[in-house]
């Protein structure tokens, strides 16, 4: 694809596909998981063909997500290492929330908020997968005690609620900061968007051209 003038490539096609597989899995997991979490949301199980199908397919979504997210992690981890500017940026979060980023340090490829989302997702997905295996009774019932399963069950639901919260933050931030979504749909962002939100990354990208 020819890149339109005045834009920067932000995500390769492979990265975008990788992201949307992960996103799809996370949404399906949230819907099927919430169906089993609260009686008032049990109707969501109809989306998956009833309660038994929901119970059966949920851990498979999780398995696909784990692999897909692992690839995403390998792609992005080096851009998400924490540095001193990130701490300063967090200190100026009040200005950022007021749409005034001039008072915050210049940002590289990712800002501190995005990095926190990245690491929260990583940690929670690990907790969810490990605890999920313990309560995947169809295949793994015999490997753990009932008390261990109770702990896993509670951890799984706590981590699930936390990751849905992180997801809400992630989606809201993408909608709030206009011009972000097209980075993940078309792979490019405008020079103006980069200047406004990721100035250091813009300069680095310009030098690399």
């Amino acid at each position, binding site marked *: 694809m020819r890149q339109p003038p005045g834009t920067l490539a932000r995500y390769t096609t492979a990265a975008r596909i990788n992201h949307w597989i992960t996103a799809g899995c996370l949404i399906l997991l949230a819907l099927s998981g919430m169906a089993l979490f609260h009686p008032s949301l049990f109707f969501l199980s109809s989306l998956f063909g009833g309660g038994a199908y929901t119970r059966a397919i949920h851990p498979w979504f999780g398995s696909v997500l784990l692999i897909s997210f692992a690839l995403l992690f390998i792609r992005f981890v080096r851009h998400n290492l924490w540095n001193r500017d990130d701490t300063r940026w967090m200190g100026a979060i009040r200005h950022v929330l007021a*749409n005034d980023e001039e008072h915050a340090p210049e940002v590289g490829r990712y800002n501190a908020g995005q990095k926190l989302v990245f690491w929260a997702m990583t940690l929670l997905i690990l907790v969810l997968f490990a605890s999920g295996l313990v309560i995947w009774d169809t295949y793994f019932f015999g490997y753990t005690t009932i008390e261990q399963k*109770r702990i896993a*069950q*509670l951890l799984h639901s706590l981590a699930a609620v936390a990751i849905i919260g992180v997801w809400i933050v992630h989606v809201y931030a993408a909608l709030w900061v206009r011009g972000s979504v097209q980075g993940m749909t078309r792979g490019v962002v*405008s020079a103006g968007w980069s*200047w*406004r939100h990721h100035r250091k990354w813009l300069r680095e990208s310009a030098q690399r051209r």
Partner: protein
Amino acid sequence: MADFQSLDIRRLSASTEVPPNIRDATQVAKLIDVSRCIGCKACQAACMEWNDLRDDIGYFEGSYDNPSDLTPSSWTLMRFTEWENPQGNLEWLIRKDGCMHCADPGCLKACPSPGAIVQYQNGIVDFISENCIGCGYCIKGCPFNIPRLSQADQKVYKCTLCSDRVAVGQEPACAKACPTGAIVFGTKSDMTAWAGERIEDLKSRGFDQAGLYDPPGVGGTHVMYVLHHADTPSIYAGLPDNPHISRLVQAWKGMMKPIAMAGLAFTAVVGFVHWIAAGPNEVQPEDEAKGRDALDDKR
């Protein structure tokens, strides 16, 4: 005489509906007098027979327990314990294990599928298998380690207290078959009174600690034991001394549900309020100009 009122539902799993509760149904109970049990396994045979269950042939595990554990098709089981009492004598303790039909059932509390577990007005806790989704949550909820997940159909099974027999005025099959009268069935108050007589008799024969096992931690049970050593239930093949629904399960199925839903709703509302207050963060024309300059400078 048929007693279909006993099929009225008191509690329904994963449901926000409140079943009708104004009628005062008779509470039933099965009393298992451990001191009268001879370990003949007639109850096990009767259970298989009435419920049309045939377990797989198992293996000898070095004990009289046969099969060695409860399974999806063995809903009751005699558990044998060779216990040395403080006088140094052997006592052969035989306990018929199976669902205790708790007044506060942990399985029902944990179940996420509407109507897969019900508690009838008479106190019987029953699994309605058509609605069971096979998640195994009831196994985590049960304080007595009773429900078993079937690999054949991914559904969970346990003793029904012969709810089908009780509904037509019959006693459970195990009670019907018991040759020594160790298993009796009736109203909970009658069974408690009968247990009292038995306990008095046992005490007169030197079992000072004889007593009734009707644990208050689960609100009492609709299957009760007369134990000669009621001070230490755990010597009877691990019968819990003080059973209660695990605090982990209570947290997961209690406080956590409303707090989690409110927390997520709050997060979304905060986002919305931020949108209303600060509005979208839009790229301005000057950003675009400066961005293009920055791109071109280095070209």
